């Protein structure tokens, strides 16, 4: 039960994260990156680290990736040293840099020019190869067909402050209603939680997602929280809001992977009970789904009764072991419905008459005997007088 709650918790939280992501599509590209050009400016922002010879590193994978992209055709040393995860973005930047030749270094060198600029830099590098470098360094001639997602508003702590309580409320109401809400704990094994910048904005949706799930709380003793934590972290890290369709598809895959045992999406109550009641049926639908005889076939009702003899839906109101008798089988027309056969022989006789003669016959016999007796007596008397 608890394990299933965890799965559903994941579903709810993920659904909430979808909401966050939908509210700000493309924020990853528009998220600000540290613009500090000096060690003092860099470290003035919490979480940032000044790396000598490299620049300001905010310590997050996504940020590093964006920064690398932003550096575009910047020095290979910069890309390689600051990209700890080896992300696609970094690789693209490096490729562009190589293709673009040495001239590509011109606009780079100073990190923090924004992700849009970085992407443009990649395009520029490619064009440099095709055009023999004549337009190197312009950084503004992006192909409209492959134009990046336009910048969007960053995810702010304000948006998160509204979204997280909604997630928590959904958890409490839908999943934790019968559990004590004391001794609440956050998800275990979370990494360093990204914090908003001085303006209250998160660098990207991934950081916002991690921050959001770190604020969720679960009652002590909730099983499966470690697994749930890993799943949600994975979800946040893989968020790619640049394409809404991709985001939804990936979410769908994730949901399917996280909660494969759920018959349908959370919150969707089936209109009919299954004819076969699986073992996990009551664990999930208990208290959420009531059925009555008019909604069921005879087989369905008796399958439910056979599964749970306590008859939670009162389908067998006369307690005779048969549910919804009124929902007669289609083949019942072939037979009469039986209460149940009598058994054994029938006691239809007490042996009190063994003659085989009826009362009338006995009376006739008695009459004959009486007549004979009377006749004989009369004859005896007459002969006696004569004698």
């Amino acid at each position, binding site marked *: 039960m608890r394990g299933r709650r965890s799965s559903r918790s994941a579903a709810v939280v993920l659904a909430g994260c979808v909401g966050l992501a939908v509210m700000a599509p493309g924020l990853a590209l528009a998220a600000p990156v540290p613009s500090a050009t000096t060690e003092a400016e860099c470290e003035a922002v919490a979480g940032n680290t000044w790396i000598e010879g490299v620049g300001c590193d905010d310590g997050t994978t996504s940020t590093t990736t964006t920064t690398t992209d932003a550096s575009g055709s910047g020095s290979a040393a910069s890309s390689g040293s600051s990209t700890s995860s080896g992300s696609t973005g970094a690789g693209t930047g490096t490729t562009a840099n190589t293709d673009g030749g040495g001239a590509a270094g011109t606009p780079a060198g100073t990190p923090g020019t924004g992700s849009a600029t970085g992407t443009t830099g990649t395009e520029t590098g490619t064009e440099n190869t095709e055009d023999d470098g004549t337009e190197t360094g312009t950084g503004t001639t992006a192909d409209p067909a492959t134009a990046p997602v336009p910048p969007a508003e960053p995810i702010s702590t304000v948006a998160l402050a509204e979204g997280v309580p909604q997630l928590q409320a959904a958890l409490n109401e839908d999943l934790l209603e019968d559990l004590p809400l004391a001794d609440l704990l956050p998800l275990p094994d979370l990494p360093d939680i990204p914090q908003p910048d001085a303006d209250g904005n998160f660098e990207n949706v991934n950081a916002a997602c991690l921050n959001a799930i770190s604020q969720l709380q679960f009652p002590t003793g909730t099983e499966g929280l470690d697994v749930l934590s890993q799943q949600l972290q994975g979800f946040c890290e893989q968020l790619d809001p640049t394409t809404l369709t991709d985001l939804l598809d990936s979410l769908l895959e994730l949901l399917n992977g996280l909660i494969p045992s759920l018959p349908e999406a959370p919150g969707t109550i089936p209109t009919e009970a299954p004819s076969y009641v699986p073992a996990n049926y009551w664990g999930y639908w208990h208290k959420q789904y009531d059925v009555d005889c008019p909604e069921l076939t005879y087989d369905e009702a008796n399958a439910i009764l056979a599964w749970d003899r306590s008859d939670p839906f009162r389908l067998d109101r006369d307690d005779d072991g048969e549910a919804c008798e009124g929902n007669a089988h289609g083949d019942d027309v072939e037979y*009469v419905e*039986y209460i149940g056969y009598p058994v054994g*022989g029938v006691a*239809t*006789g007490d*042996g009190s008459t063994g003659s085989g003669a009826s009362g009338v016959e006995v009376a006739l*016999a008695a009459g004959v*005997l009486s007549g004979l007796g009377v006749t004989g007596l009369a*004859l*005896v008397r007459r002969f006696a007088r004569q004698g």
Partner: protein
Amino acid sequence: MATTTEQGTGTNGTTRATIGILVVLALLAVVAYLSGDPSQRVGPAAADLPADRTAVALPLESAATSNLRIPSIGVDTRQLKELGQTEDRRLEVPKDAPTVGHYAGGAAPGERGPAVYASHVNYRGVDGGFARLAEVEAGDQVLIEREDGVTVVYAVDRVDEVDKNAFPTAQVYGPTTDAQLRLITCGGEFDTDVRSYEDNVIVFGHAVEAYRA
């Protein structure tokens, strides 16, 4: 004188002997009649059905029984009662000798399934409603009139006498796809120790037609 006396004495002796013989013969005849086992079939195997009857399709819906006739053994009774089951799941029996009971949990006459009737062979010194049931033969006719005015005509398929300890429950009470008939009473030897007959006589039949007169 002496001759007259002897003649009178001889005449009286002859007369008395004759009367005695007659009485003995009468008694023997009565005893032989009462203890004998003459055929108890008192009527035709089948009765004439009304020529102007209107056929009714089988099977029928449920309706109570109003009259039961077995022409071959002279049963014609309206003394009927619905029967249930006892606590030990035995078929109830009528509380008097002549009443014929119908098992309410089974089929009604003409309805799909076996319509089961039971009556005593004897009870409290009186012959029961099915006293002569053992005399019924295959092919005999049984007519059951329903309270809705429909008469169902059954043909007897067979008559079995079975040990009560091997009673064919399913054959008697089990579902059938057509309208059938079961008539039950006691038979066989009477076990005085348990005051019960050892066997049951069961008539099996099936409906051949139904009509309104």
